[in-house]
């Protein structure tokens, strides 16, 4: 098992995950730095992610969408706030509308990723800070695995159909 620990603070609304990988720091860094690799694990298997824009630098922006089983798209964006290869990445993550424009009233989350060299292995620590429970609900909605995939604004019937898969 590669997940070493998780920690949740329900008052401050943040989530931290520590995982270790049997690969070097440079290699693990590439799963974040290279959009081709990132999109292979970011979305759930049934909602694969496609990054249309990926400016992997401080101040850079990313635009992505996840495609659901019925072809519907759930869009998101990042604003990258720090890139210090191969050890630190911070970015702000938010929702986008069908035109790719940020949806401000759905909030943003701040993510911090650090990589540590454990002598050939790599420890990755990822922290996400939420602003509100409503926002967390939306994040979960966007990212949930089979059964609970709720692209926002989808009709109940579609949700019910998906939930039974």
């Amino acid at each position, binding site marked *: 098992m*590669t997940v070493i620990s998780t920690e*949740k603070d329900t008052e401050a609304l943040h*989530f931290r995950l520590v995982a270790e990988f049997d690969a070097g720091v440079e290699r*693990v860094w590439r799963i974040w730095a290279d959009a081709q690799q990132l999109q292979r694990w970011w979305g759930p298997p049934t909602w694969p992610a496609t990054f249309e824009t990926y400016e992997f630098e401080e101040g850079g922006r990313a635009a992505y969408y996840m495609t659901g089983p019925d072809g519907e798209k759930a869009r998101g964006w990042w604003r990258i706030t720090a890139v210090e290869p191969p050890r630190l990445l911070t970015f702000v993550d938010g929702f986008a509308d069908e035109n790719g424009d940020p949806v401000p009233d759905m909030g943003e989350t701040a993510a911090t990723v650090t990589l540590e060299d454990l002598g050939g292995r790599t420890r990755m620590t990822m922290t996400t800070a939420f602003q509100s429970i409503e926002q*967390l609900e939306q994040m979960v909605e966007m990212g949930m695995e089979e059964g609970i995939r709720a692209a926002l604004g989808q009709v109940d019937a579609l949700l019910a159909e998906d939930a039974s898969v």
Partner: protein
Amino acid sequence: MVVQTLRQDEVDRLFQALADATRRDIVARVLVAEYSVSGLAEQYDMSFAAVQKHVAVLQRASLVSKEKRGREQIVRGEVDGVQRARRLLDDYERIWRQRVDRITDLLGEDAGDDD
């Protein structure tokens, strides 16, 4: 670590209820202050009956409660926010554990090349 999860049917109800922007808005409002159904209806460009239906969906998801007071139906946010956050963080954790699994698979693919 004890991972607490909602039952599948509860999750379905919760997410179905929250998949609608009006319903999310109703929840946000009534968590702050109680509203009568007619008071809520004034906030949206839809009929009283439509708002009443939204409230009923939220009630089934245990996100709001409704109480008759005189001639009015009072709607109140019902959810213990911290409890809900806890469950949602559990769900979020599941998302991240699945991502870590996929990262591990991805790294494993080229392990042969690195050695």
